[in-house]
């Protein structure tokens, strides 16, 4: 009889620990990288706006990868963004350009890739040289106001 109780309480505790791990790793804080079939590409942006790690990278609207680590390059003072690309999409032209786009007006930031026409393909640890920064709404508005002032 007491064996039955112990078995159930053990299961109960195991479930609780699993929940705590799930909440710690998946819901909050850090995430163990999924690894696997990926290759890395780097891109430098002047302004990333609100781009977050794990944001989708799309080409023609199809998700082809996820944003990895984002850091500041201390020499050029640009944001260095790691793209974790799905290995299924290995043949992406060398001169592809990357832009930071927004889903809707207030939506999440994501990366849009526009393919170029080069014969060479992006390799692992390669660099996407053509980038377009995120549009910061405040800058846009101030530019707009400045222009309309000049016109007067």
């Amino acid at each position, binding site marked *: 009889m007491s064996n039955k109780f112990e078995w159930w309480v053990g299961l*109960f505790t195991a479930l609780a620990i699993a929940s705590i791990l799930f*909440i*710690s790793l998946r*819901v909050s804080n850090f995430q163990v990288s999924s690894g696997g079939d990926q290759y890395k590409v780097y891109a430098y942006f002047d302004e990333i706006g609100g781009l*977050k790690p794990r944001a989708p990278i799309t080409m023609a609207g199809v998700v082809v990868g996820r944003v990895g680590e984002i850091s500041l390059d201390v020499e050029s003072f640009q944001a260095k963004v790691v793209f974790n690309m799905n290995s299924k999409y290995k043949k992406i032209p060398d001169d592809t350009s990357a832009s930071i786009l927004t*889903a*809707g007006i207030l939506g*999440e930031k994501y990366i849009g890739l526009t393919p170029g026409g080069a014969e060479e393909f992006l390799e692992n640890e390669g660099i996407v040289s053509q980038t377009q920064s995120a549009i910061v709404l405040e800058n846009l508005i101030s530019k707009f106001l400045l222009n309309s002032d000049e016109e007067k």
Partner: protein
Amino acid sequence: MARLSKLGSNVISLFSSLGRAQVFLWHIWSAGISFSGVVKQIYFVGVLSLPIILVSGFFVGMVLGLQGYYTLVDFGAADSLGVLVALTLTRELGPVVGAILFAGRSGSALTTEVGLMKATEQLAALELMGIDPMRFVMRPRFIAGIISLPFLVMMFVAVGVLGAWFVSVGLLGIDDGAFWSQMQAKVSWSNDVLNGLVKALIFSVVVTWLALFLGNDAIPTAEGVSGATTATVVYSSLWVLGLDFILTAMMFD
């Protein structure tokens, strides 16, 4: 005159009951340690509450996902659904709904059990045999309650998040990565998850204490025990909701 003296006697009985509750807690605290019965009590108090906690958690998560979606989609912010659900569950709904369900499922059972033990004079019999009921009846149940509720709350939150994930990613077509990434970016472990756990721990002490005290304090008749059971559920829910407000005001200023 008669009304005034009735009011006075009510106040006196309220305060004497509060006093007895504190003496009771002290007796449980100072009773010798006997862990032999704790595992068995965790089974009755915690494991048997699993179905109701898991099923309610899943449905609460699904409803939160659905309602949140209807509101957020108008602002083009449906991707933030994961954040909304995770913060609501870890900070408030997990501990509060978990504790109220726990009071209804296990608190009432504890009160009835202890109340019947008293009504059928089992507690008195134990004492006659030189066995301390505080040590062998109350303390294992108290410890089991304090261990079980935080565990159940964590499971409630985890299952709730999964329910919301099922609705938003599975049915409403929100991007899987955006759902998790925004959640991870905005839910902090030390602030949200830990505070939710602290809340759960405090609620577990309050609910178990109330349940055991009201059972022990019940008038030893059928009506007395049933009244005590009702009182456990009502008082526990009120205390949990009231304390939650105070704790929230203190934690998330």
